[in-house]
């Protein structure tokens, strides 16, 4: 068994009375595209900063490639970071920014210039080296920050919500490019985001953070299809939670269950209810249906047919038994 690129054991971090990270154990495999997903304040960025060496853990250890680096300062760790605000040096040109890490490590001038130009080429910014960061667009700065980190050939690349400041089109384009770059260079990417679409589309595995702890780790499919907690079910995608009496009458069992909106069909049979909201969203339409059994369900239907249900209309919902996911440990069935 190979050593994991990153191993976090019992990691905790408190800021005064606030516990930002409340005990995390995690192994990230070498060459993996790993995402840390969670709402703001869930501790994901703090974990990233402890891996980078910007924050010291209150307790626990950080190991990189099997070596305990908990006490090492940032400049002695073989990781590089792409910052949320890019953190490009404003007084240096683009190529000087990219060269910075090599210069600090005393790589000879000609070699570092060649490597920096190569890195700029890899992010499709060949010929932009002479510009100042202030003369670049947000998307271009993002690529410079990526080149500046990758040129050092780190074992691990940390990305702190790097796409947050970009508009939707550019973000989707960068998602594809990042994934491609990661495959090309083959290094471990640790990607922090609060955007579940981003985490699901790009990652090999996802850790969902909730209040300083990891609620679930798994492949995007596992996290989406088998959420471990109600929080994961609610945060990753939209989910219809069935609890209490509604759960009993709709599934015949006690417990907490989840049904994804796209797994539900509006048809001529099934659980009766009233459409309380119809939201048209281009390729799909979302219906909010109040079931007579007491649950409120969101249903997503592709807009393939005309004549869909109207607000206030009586409808019936069906779903397959296999799409009913029981959440939590105790399996009643």
């Amino acid at each position: 068994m190979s050593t994991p690129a990153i191993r976090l054991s019992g990691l905790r971090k408190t800021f005064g009375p606030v516990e930002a990270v409340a005990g995390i154990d995690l192994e990230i495999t070498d060459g993996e595209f790993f995402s840390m997903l969670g709402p703001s304040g869930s501790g994901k960025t703090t974990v990233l900063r402890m891996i980078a060496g910007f924050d010291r853990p209150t307790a626990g250890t950080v190991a990189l490639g099997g070596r305990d680096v908990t006490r090492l300062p940032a400049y002695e760790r073989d990781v590089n970071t792409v910052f949320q605000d890019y953190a490009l040096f404003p007084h240096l040109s683009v190529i000087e920014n990219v060269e910075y890490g090599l210069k600090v490590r005393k790589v000879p001038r000609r070699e570092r210039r060649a490597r920096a130009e190569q890195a700029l080429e890899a992010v499709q910014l060949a010929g932009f080296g002479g510009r100042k960061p202030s003369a670049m667009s947000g998307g271009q700065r993002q690529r410079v920050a990526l080149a500046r980190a990758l040129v050092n050939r780190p074992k691990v690349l940390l990305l702190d919500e790097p796409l947050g400041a970009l508009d939707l089109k550019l973000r989707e384009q960068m998602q594809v490019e990042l994934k491609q770059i990661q495959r090309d260079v083959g290094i471990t990417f640790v990607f922090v985001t609060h955007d579940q679409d981003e985490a699901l589309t790009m990652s090999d595995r996802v850790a969902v953070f909730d209040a300083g702890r990891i609620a679930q780790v798994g492949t995007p499919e596992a996290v989406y299809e088998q959420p471990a907690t109600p929080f994961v079910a609610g945060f990753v995608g939209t989910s219809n939670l069935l609890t209490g009496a509604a759960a009993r009458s709709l599934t015949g069992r006690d417990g907490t269950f989840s049904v994804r909106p796209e797994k539900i069909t509006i048809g001529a049979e099934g659980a009766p209810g009233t459409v309380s909201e119809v939201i048209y969203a281009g390729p799909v339409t979302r219906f909010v249906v109040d079931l007579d059994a007491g649950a409120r369900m969101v249903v997503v239907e592709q807009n393939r047919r005309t004549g869909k249900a109207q607000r206030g209309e009586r409808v019936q919902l069906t779903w397959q038994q296999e799409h009913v996911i029981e959440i939590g440990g105790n399996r009643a069935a």
Partner: protein
Amino acid sequence: MDDDQGIGRRRWQLAALLSAPLLWLGVAYLGALAVLFLSAFWTVNGFTGEVVREFSLQNFRTIVTEEVYRNVTLRSLGVAVAVTLICVALALPMAYYMAKVASPRARHWLVIAILTPLWASYLVKAYAWRVLLANDGPLDSVVGTPGYGLIAVIIVLTYLWLPYMILPIYAGLERLPDSLLEASADLGGRAGQTFRGVVLPILVPSIFAGSIFTFSLSLGDYITVQIVGGKTQMIGNLVYANVGAANNLPFAAAIATIPVIIMVVYLTAVRRSGALEEL
């Protein structure tokens, strides 16, 4: 037609609004400088002591040819440069601590601590230092005193103008995002490399902005020199002596143009660094 009248009226309102400050700038400020410069070309009748209002280069000839004036000018320049450099050296770590290390609470108190001495009278502070630096004074009994002289002048001027250097550097550091320091460390830069490669270059305009104060205030000072300077003379003392004891106003004006010229040269030089936008 209506529009033209509207614009015309607005122009008049603008002119009326600006007239008072423009008058002040033109007459009181530039006018005084012009009179100073003009009178520098006049002379004083040696017998009657009356000002002779005839154009003459005699004052400037004296300043350029007589060694004492060159020495005093160089000494004043040296003091101004030394005070500025020491202020930079002291202000950088202090401002860094205030902006990046201290807690927000402590930061407020430190800013207050920096600003408070500026409310105290210049004379009181200078005389306090005279007491401190005296032979057998408090400083002498602890670490020894350099006594009154050039060193004392540099110490006291550094003390007096240090806040004017700390504040712009502090402001510059506050604007410097922490992520830039982290990015440098992330790329392998130790504290020293981060300071030389990132902090210092970004702070250059702030340092120049502070230096405009420390340099010009030191260059023209004569009161501190009188109080703790012993026999030391600077440009300001020569001006003072010629206005008072020698009663040679034109020559005083000629000497006073020296620091003005030095400052114009200095400001032109630092303008390129963007320091003037930092004021």
